[in-house]
Each structure stands twice: as C-alpha cells, then as structure tokens.
C-alpha cells in the first residue's frame, strides 16, 4: 500500500511524518532524532562516500568542522530576489556566496559550484523522503509540504519546485499554522475559534481559525517573514560579540568557525534561560592571545537582562496578532484555544506573553516542533485517499485564505487591488482591460502582492505581456484577464478575448524562480524514472503563475 508523507520544511529544522494504519507518526533518523537540521553540507572534492552531500544531523556536525561546505537557512532566501532586505542581511551572516540566477532567482556558490536555491531545499526534502522510505519499507511518491502562512506566491512556487526536484508529486502546499490546527483539532468535534501562534526559526505567523465540526476555516492570517527565533539568537550573539570587541578580540569574528560556535553558544544560553534565572556562556578556545595561547571566552547573563533585550521582538509578534484579530473582527478573549507552534514557543518569555495577551495558557499536549508535520501528514493522507477514491476515516476539510492582497500596477505608481487579503481560496476575479491606442498589439500587466497602495511597498510577482492582439480601434478590444489563486495559494493568470473566445498566450517576463524546463532538468529522479506519471499535469493553455 502506498503512502503520502507530510513535511514541515523549516528554516533551522525539518520534520517528516506519515499517517500509517490511521495513526500519524513522526519519523526518526537512524540515531532516533525526530527533528532534522535543514542543513546541506557539500564535501570538498569527493572524499565522502556517495555523492559527497550530507543532510540533517550529520551535515550539521560537519558544519562545525568544515563550515565552508555548509548551506543552511535556505528557507530565509527561497523565492526572494537579490535586492531584498533578507538577502542583504543573509549575505553578512552566512559563509556561502549568494548570486543571482538568470530569472531573478537566487543561486548559492559552494566550493566553486553553483546551485539553484530550490535544489538546496530539494536535498533536504530528498533526505526526509529517504527516511520515510526506510521507515515504511517502500518508495514514497507523494508529499504535502508546509510553508509559513505569510509566504507569497514566489516563495510557494519555489518550495513546490523543490519538492518536484526531489522527485515527488507535491499534492499540496499548506500553511504551517493551518496544518497545526488540523493536527490539534483532530477528533475534537467542536464549534469554536482557535488561534495558532507560530514562532519558528525564521518566521512568525498568526492564524485565526473557525473550527466547525470537521471543517477548518481560516478566518484571517498575518505574519512577518523577517521575524523568528534566529533573531532572538542574534540578540545574544550581539551581546557576546560586543563583549569580545570590548576585549579587543575582533579578529575572531571573521573566522567562520568561531561565528558558528558563538551562534551555538547563544542558542544554548537562550534555551537555558527558560529554566534558570541566570546562566554562564562559555566558549572554549575561541581565540588566541598575542603569545599564540588558546583563550576561553566566558560571560554571564540573567533572564531579566535577556527579557529586556528581546522585548521589542516579543512586542512585534503581538502587533501582528492585533492585525489578524482586527481582520477577523474578534477580541483576544473570543479565542477558545491557542495552539503554540515552533521551537521558539518553548521559551518562557513567549509562553508568559501569550498567556497575558489571550488571557489563557496555551493548549497543552502539543509538541511545538512536530505538530506542523503531523498536520501535513494528515492532509497528505486525506488528499491521497480522495485521489484513490478511498474514504478517509478522519476526513477534515481545510479552507485556507490568501495572506496578502493581489493587485496590478496602474498609472501613477499605484496598485489596483484585485483580490483582497484573507479571501478564502480557491478564488478568482476577472478584470477587463482595453487597448489604449489603435491596433495595439500588446498589453503589459504587472502583478504585485502586498497591502500598500503605492507600488513601492509591494512584492512584484512578475509581469505578463498579452501579445498578438487582433487589430482594432483603441478601446474597442476588450480582454478579460482572470486572476486565480488556487488551493496552494499559488497565482495563475489567464486572458481571454471575450468576443472571439480566444485565449491569449501569457508570457512571464520577470518571475523570481526557475523555469519549467530548469525544474525538469534538475529532478533527482530523472535518470532512473522513465515514465511521466509523476509529472504534474499542465493543460497547456496556462503557464504556472506570476
């Protein structure tokens, strides 16, 4: 019997689960680890067995020894453009080189080799698929992958591409908080509002859901893709390096190995401060003195100090919560249960803050690291069963929303909104365009995602050129352009001349991602897999979104 798996592809760690005999199960590696670092490590030359690529716990270990071969935090970069703030920030923090690909996508250079970013994520996905296959004892072809609710179209498409490069059919891209709600609410048939507070390694999301029996309706969602546990670590890293600077040991920070060890020490201290009032940060042999002797670094920090330093970050998460509740037209007290997701929610300061904001303690019995992947596995099972015509005992229906408004550029540098944020998906809107001059042959449409009325504050998804228009006096030719957001949150644009009922070709000019041909060429299963059965079906008239 075949299975479909659920993968929580995280910034720092990933988790893979499967529903087996009706029971969701989190899959461990050979050492019993249930979460797997989203780290890919490339050997210099080919001195390691196999293809010289390690993923997960072993890759994470190698990064300590040979940091220049490691690629991590790929999720922070996926689907972004080279000029974005996040990429500029990452360039300073990571040891690998970030380049721009031919279609405004990002590429990574490690050991003089250049890899598309989606391929890095694909290595993580392939590793997780391998773990599932050894657990199940059979090949796995189908997957549901989760993304932060606030991910835009480019980021969702790039994630789906990564799944396909890893040789799987991606049944669905679902939102992390929604997956968590599905896993949490399973079996508890009630009618209530729930909130999912999801603070992961690199992103923050809040989703408000209405659970009506086995129908899970997302009412609103809000997020910040620039805010996560890593930012809390960075505060402590700054604390450590500022003390090193005071000691005049600046040179040490330029070494990649030292940076990695300082980051680990910061993470360690952050975790300890949830259980202890104060802790000592100790990093052995961090630098050498003038005489060439190894020197240790040691400093102390109290919980009160830490809480003060991270307060702006904590406060920011509740500003985002306010936004989601306002959109849902609810008061915090209307929320019947709060589900906490993401490793960072283990932190005491977050638990206490959530408690006081919602006026109740977060739901118990939830493993914040695993719940998203469990939800993904449940959804994978449900869709896979429907696909095979089998009834699933726990068939829940998920109705999600689009996190950001979709619009097009208009004269004067403004964005005309076509589909508003928090609209249930799938959805579509049709807009009619006319030509501005006689015998106009092309119409250019620039598509944006975001809330700002001015173009500047929005993310450009791409631009479309409707070409080969029939000759007509200006204003006479009308084009019905349909903007569709599918259940994956992925945007598709199609155009039709209502008079002739003829669909127009749409050329994607500037989408930050890989082309269809590139994804196909990169697929790991290309050599051994001859048939096209696992290739996603495209019906030719449409090109995948902006």
């Amino acid at each position: 019997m075949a299975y479909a798996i659920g993968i929580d592809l995280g910034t720092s760690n990933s988790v893979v689960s499967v529903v087996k005999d009706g029971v969701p199960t989190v899959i461990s590696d050979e050492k019993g680890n249930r979460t797997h670092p989203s780290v890919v490590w490339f050997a210099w030359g080919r001195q390691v067995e196999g293809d010289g690529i390690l993923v997960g716990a072993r890759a994470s270990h190698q990064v300590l020894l040979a940091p220049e071969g490691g690629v991590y935090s790929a999720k922070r970069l996926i689907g972004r453009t080279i000029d974005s703030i996040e990429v500029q920030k990452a360039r300073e923090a990571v040891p690998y080189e970030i380049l721009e690909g031919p279609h405004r996508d990002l590429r990574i250079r490690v050991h003089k080799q250049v890899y598309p970013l989606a391929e890095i994520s694909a290595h993580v996905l392939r590793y997780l698929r391998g773990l599932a296959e050894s657990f199940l004892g059979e090949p796995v072809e189908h997957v549901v992958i989760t993304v932060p609710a606030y991910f835009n179209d480019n980021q969702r498409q790039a994630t789906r591409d990564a799944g396909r490069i890893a040789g799987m059919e991606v049944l669905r891209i679902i939102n992390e908080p929604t997956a968590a709600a599905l896993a949490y609410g399973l079996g508890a048939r009630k009618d209530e509002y729930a909130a999912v507070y999801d603070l992961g390694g690199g992103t923050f999301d809040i989703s408000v859901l209405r659970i009506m029996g086995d129908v899970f309706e997302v009412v609103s969602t809000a997020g910040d893709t620039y805010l996560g546990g890593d930012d809390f670590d960075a505060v402590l890293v700054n604390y450590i390096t500022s003390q090193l600077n005071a000691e005049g040991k600046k040179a040490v920070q330029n070494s990649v190995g030292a940076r990695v060890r300082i980051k680990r020490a910061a993470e360690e201290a952050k975790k300890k401060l949830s259980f202890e009032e104060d802790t000592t940060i100790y990093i052995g042999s961090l630098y050498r003195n003038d005489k060439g002797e190894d020197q240790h670094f040691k400093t102390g920090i109290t919980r009160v100090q830490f809480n003060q330093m991270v307060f702006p970050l904590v406060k920011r998460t509740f500003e985002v919560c306010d936004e989601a509740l306002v959109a849902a037209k609810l008061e915090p007290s209307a929320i019947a249960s709060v589900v906490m997701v993401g490793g960072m929610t283990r932190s005491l300061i977050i638990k206490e803050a959530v408690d006081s904001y919602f006026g109740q303690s977060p739901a118990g019995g939830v493993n914040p690291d695993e719940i998203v992947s469990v939800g993904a596995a449940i959804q994978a099972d449900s869709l896979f069963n429907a696909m095979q015509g089998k009834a699933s005992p726990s068939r829940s229906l998920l109705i999600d929303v689009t996190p950001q408004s979709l619009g097009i550029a208009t004269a004067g540098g403004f964005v005309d909104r076509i589909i508003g944020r928090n609209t249930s998906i799938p959805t579509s809107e049709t807009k009619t365009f006319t030509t501005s001059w006689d015998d106009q042959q092309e119409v250019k449409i620039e598509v944006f995602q975001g809330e700002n009325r001015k173009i500047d504050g929005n993310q450009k998804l791409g631009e479309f050129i409707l070409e080969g228009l029939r000759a007509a006096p200006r204003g006479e030719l009308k084009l019905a352009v349909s903007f569709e957001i599918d259940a994956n949150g992925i945007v598709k644009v199609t155009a039709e001349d209502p008079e002739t009922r003829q669909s127009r070709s749409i050329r994607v000019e500037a989408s930050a991602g890989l082309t269809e041909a590139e994804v196909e060429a990169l697929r790991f299963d290309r050599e051994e897999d001859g048939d096209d059965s696992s290739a996603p079906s495209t019906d030719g008239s449409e090109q995948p979104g902006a």
Partner: protein
Amino acid sequence: MELELRTRVEVEAIASVLDDVDYYQLLKLNGGAPIPDVEKAYASQSKMFHPDNYFGVRDAKFTRAVTAVFKKVNESYQVLKDPELKKMYDKKMGFRGGAAGDGQVGGRRRRGLSKADLEAEKEALEGGGVVSDKDALKYWELAEIATMNKDWNGVVMNLQFALNYEPKNPILKEKLVDAKSQLAEKKGKEKNPYKIKIR
C-alpha cells in the same frame, strides 16, 4: 476515482445556473437568513462543493464546474458573514430579516450584484462619502495624496478626472476652485524671481 452520477448531475446543474442564483439560494437558505445560519450552511455546502473532496477526479469538465461552484459559495459567504455587506446586499435584493420571500426581485437586478460592487460601495461610503463612483473615488484619493504633497498641479488634474465621472459633485467642484487658486498663487511666486532675472 469513481464519481457518483447524482453528484455529477447536481454539481453541473448548479454550475450552469451560477449567474442566476442569489447568494442565499446558493447556500440553500431562505432570503435574508441570519448570520449563524449562513455560517452553518457554508460549512455544509463546503463539504459538498470543495474541490478537495474530488481530488482524484480526472475529469476536467467536472473539476472546472465544482471549482466554479465553490468559488461562488465562498463569495456568498464573504458577503453574508460581514454584517455591513449583508445589510447592503439584503437591502438591494429586497430581503428583510429572513421574512421576505423569493421572487420579489427580478433576475436582472440580481445578476448585477457582485461582491466586488458591494465592496466598492462600502469603500466609497468609508471614503468620507465625498464620491460614490468607483473610478471617481480613485482620482479623489489621488487628489488627496497630491494635496498632502502640496502638488497643486496633481490636485487639479485628478479632481478634473474625478469630475468626469461625477460632473455634479459639489465638493469636487469646490475643491477644484480652491486647488486652482493655490496653483495660481504658486505660479505667481515662481514667476517673480524669473522676472527679476530678466531685468
């Protein structure tokens, strides 16, 4: 996946009349039904019409039909769960608190009402009630931004555009007169140094 004939017939029948049914009919409710009923109906209709329920059906015609129906179910819900939009919709359609019967309103009027129209109208009401036309509103907003930037040329231009859509709007006219005098004053100031230079 095998599709029950009954399901196929029902879905395709509804899809073919989507433009002729009102939001309440689509949710199988009496016209003007209260919001809690709308919510319950949405949950049960979603279980029937959400495309995920037919994930494995490899029949493009059916998939298109069920997706179209669900999108409309969604649209109905977005309007009817929002107290303000529901009120506007009920008023225009002649529904009163669930008591009004069907058939009071002709089909033509029904078809013309969409979520987008209602939202545009709501936005216009929220926009201070100065303008009600959707296009006029756009230029009115641009004029307001230009006013903030003291770009009087832009103010005049956008107000004139707005007046194309609402030629009789008194506030727009008044603002235009004001903006024109501001523009004249600004031009006056700019001209002076130039004249001095000539001398």
